[in-house]
């Protein structure tokens, strides 16, 4: 079966989402510091290290010199950079590269877990990273089985729901308090008083939950995906818009821009779903018959 031209576009969205996520985190890990500290600097990790013969000083440093914790903390960035490159180079039969991306997903799961721990074990913190954790998996599934394969689409929908359910829960202030910077960004960008900003966020949170539900109803799913793509992009963009200023070094770009980049899955996954379900799909022209025959065009497994 031939491959639809739009499949390439769908794949591009997933590649860009994955690339942005890994590249953004690589930026954080090289330039700033990742959130892994909370996992590494704790008794349980040290106990594990001790079992394999690593001393306290070797593990955490002597005070004068770095230990394994500090050394490896900075090296993790290289793994993210490699994964970012893999999102662009991986092809249908690149099994090793796919394995690398699945490993990258594991790194993102650990990262999200670390952020969850740092946030006083607030579940929405872990949940809202679902898109970032799953984007490499979605990309691998899309390549292995096809961008329209049931497994790919289901995983993308789960990622979608995790992003917006987590985000929505925070915006609604339930079950965890709304993060203060949500209110701050809203107040600054929209020039709203705190109370009005809170109401705005409640409404936005409710819409986040509604689009998660709307995703599962054919008449609503395109509108839901469109809203999510736009809102996902705007919320990612809110960080630099609220924080950057001409008075800062580099206008503050080094403080804020990576926040948009690493959130690429927040708008690329909805964009992928939006284009997957677009009406004009039937009229798409066909590209040359694929030499790579796989399940991605099998109508029996296609989800659209």
């Amino acid at each position, binding site marked *: 079966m031939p491959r639809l031209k739009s499949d390439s576009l769908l794949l591009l969205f997933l590649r860009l989402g994955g690339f942005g996520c890994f590249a953004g985190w690589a930026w954080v890990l090289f330039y700033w510091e990742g959130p892994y500290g909370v996992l590494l600097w704790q008794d349980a990790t040290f106990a594990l290290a001790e079992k394999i013969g690593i001393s*306290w000083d070797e593990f955490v440093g002597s*005070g004068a010199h770095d230990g394994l914790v500090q050394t490896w903390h900075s090296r993790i960035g290289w793994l993210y950079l490699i994964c970012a490159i893999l999102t662009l180079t991986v092809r249908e039969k690149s099994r090793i590269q796919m394995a690398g991306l699945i490993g990258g997903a594991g790194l993102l799961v650990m990262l999200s877990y670390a952020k969850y721990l740092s946030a006083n074990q607030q579940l929405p913190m872990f949940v809202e990273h679902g898109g970032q954790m799953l984007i490499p998996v979605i990309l691998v599934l899309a390549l292995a089985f096809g961008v329209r394969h049931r497994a790919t689409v289901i995983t993308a929908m789960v990622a979608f729901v995790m992003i917006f359910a987590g985000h929505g829960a925070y915006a609604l202030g339930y079950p965890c308090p709304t993060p203060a910077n949500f*209110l701050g960004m809203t*107040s600054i960008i929209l020039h709203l008083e705190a109370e009005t900003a809170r109401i705005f966020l409640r409404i936005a949170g409710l819409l986040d939950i509604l689009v998660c539900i709307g995703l599962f109803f054919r008449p609503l799913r395109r509108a839901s995906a469109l809203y999510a793509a736009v809102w996902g992009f705007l919320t990612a963009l809110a960080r630099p818009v609220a924080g950057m200023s001409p008075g800062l070094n580099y206008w503050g770009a080094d403080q804020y821009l990576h926040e948009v980049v690493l959130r690429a899955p927040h708008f690329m996954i909805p964009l992928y779903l939006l284009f997957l379900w677009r009406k004009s799909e039937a009229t798409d022209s066909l590209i040359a018959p694929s030499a790579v025959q796989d399940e991605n065009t099998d109508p029996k497994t296609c989800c659209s």
Partner: protein
Amino acid sequence: MKFIRIVTLCCAALLIAGGAIAQQKGNKGIKGKGKSKGGGALVIPEVEKKDIICFALYTVNDKVLKLTAQLYPVPGGDTKTVRLEIERDGKWVEVAKTEVIEQGWTAPFRVENWDDTKTQKYRVLHGEEASYEGTIRRNPIDKDEIVVAGFTGNSINAKHGGDLSRQDLIDNVNKVDADVLFFSGDQVYDHHRHYAAWLKFGRDFGEIIKDRPTLCLPDDHDAGQPNLWGESGKISTLSGAADGGYSQPGEYVQEVERAQTSHMPDPVDPHTIGQGIGVWFTNLNWGNIDFAILEDRKFKTGPAGRVPKQGPRPDHILNPDYDPASVDVEGAILLGERQLKFIDEWAQDWAHANMKVALSATIFCGGAHIHGAANGRLHADMDSNGWPQTGRNNALRGLRKGFAFHYAGDQHLATIFQQGIDEYGDAIYSFCVPSIANLYLRWWEPLEAGPNRAPGAPEYTGDHLDGFANKVTNFAAANPEKNPAGNILNTRAAGFGIVRFNTKTRDIEMECWPRNVDVTDPEAKQYPGWPLTISQFDNYNPRSWGKLGELTFDVENPVVQLIDAESDEILYTVRASGKSFIPGAPGGKTFIVKAGKDAPDTVVSKDAKVGGEAQAVTLQ
């Protein structure tokens, strides 16, 4: 498609419900509102009407009593009026009433023309049933020794021993009968529910707070953020808040400050800052000691984007070879002009004061090298008041003009430093008290031994440059154990401070106690390096200075002021001890010396120099 829909809807439902369930876990059996996750049993208990007043804080200054009663939520139909009564001749007399402020449920009272010469019982009343009693102490102006107990870092997290009883602190404060309580910051660590945490603070400490003047300085965690560079009230959006400003909305910060500071003396310069946030920097004159209460966070510039990046966080400097001058950027503020002006005036005003003490959240230097749960060496931390250096030096120049002793906290590491500006030891002493329960560990551990340390003193003492190249002389550091054992408070160097100010001899004795000791037990040991006693006059006694001729007065304890004859700049103002005083001063300069009973209004000499003649001065 139907299958997919069902599966994914189930996933969505599970995620949302899971979140809710996860938040409720661990809170079983707790009755009340505002249940906590990860912060112990933080609740707003449902109390009976008779118990609706949780605690009360007060100060008396310049014949004005300010008392704030902290209430539990008042039910809708109940009166919002709260009354304050004083016992006079065995009868309760109402002296003030006020309406409770619903946002935070505080009831602030203000009583003018307060007679501070006698101790008086008070009670706060609400409705027909609720009554809360305490004692307003008389001003202890006849006491030689004023005892100030100092606390910081009130973590309630069980991981750090924060869930353990504070009874040892209560007992020890009662045993030493502290005249003033000083909570330097982080009374509350919950970043979203200050009210619930403040009520818990009141339940933990109300027993000692209700009977003595108490000063609470809200710091970063109180305001709901991990660090605070207030930048005059702007809104912070960056994770970690290094962009400057407040993460929580202004109304939240206002509630925090109302709860913690509305009982303090009126602010000397009450203009609000951004988001309608008030200011509370002021002074309290009590027991012949003039306390300057400083806000070292509120006006401070955030470093993110202002200073060249030097580490993995905008506020952290890892590179030991960086140029310290590169981060002392133009326009970066520490205390701000308003507070510097206040300090300048305060340092010259010695009415009813024998000694001066500056209180702030933290000390004016980078007071730690190793940060966190492991041996993470941090060259410099811009959360400390070592940065910005120019702002730090300006603050110290102001404070040393009044020979102020500095009492602070926040560092999670008890230390004694003498600050230096142009040379080692040319500015004030600071005592940073240990945390009540230590959330985050730090160590003072310079890589090289400090010169000029006392014989036998640890190598980490002596003269050092901090990470911002500020000159500091360390006298003591209560470093925690390198691999502390779980929630055992004292392996994490938890504790509290006591400072005894002798207003007669002008000695200042610093004590630093671990938790769960009896400070009156002769066998009880303080952290290594304590106690340390200094003189009030050590707070501005540069090593390079000489002495002017001795001044002998016809009155006790006159106020003496030294002015640079060339620049007309006031070098210092201080109340002398007894009838003689030998002013210290730099060599090679000429000074105008002024003196007076309570203010330096008489010129004693116009050309005083180091090594000059002794002089008898008549002031009566």
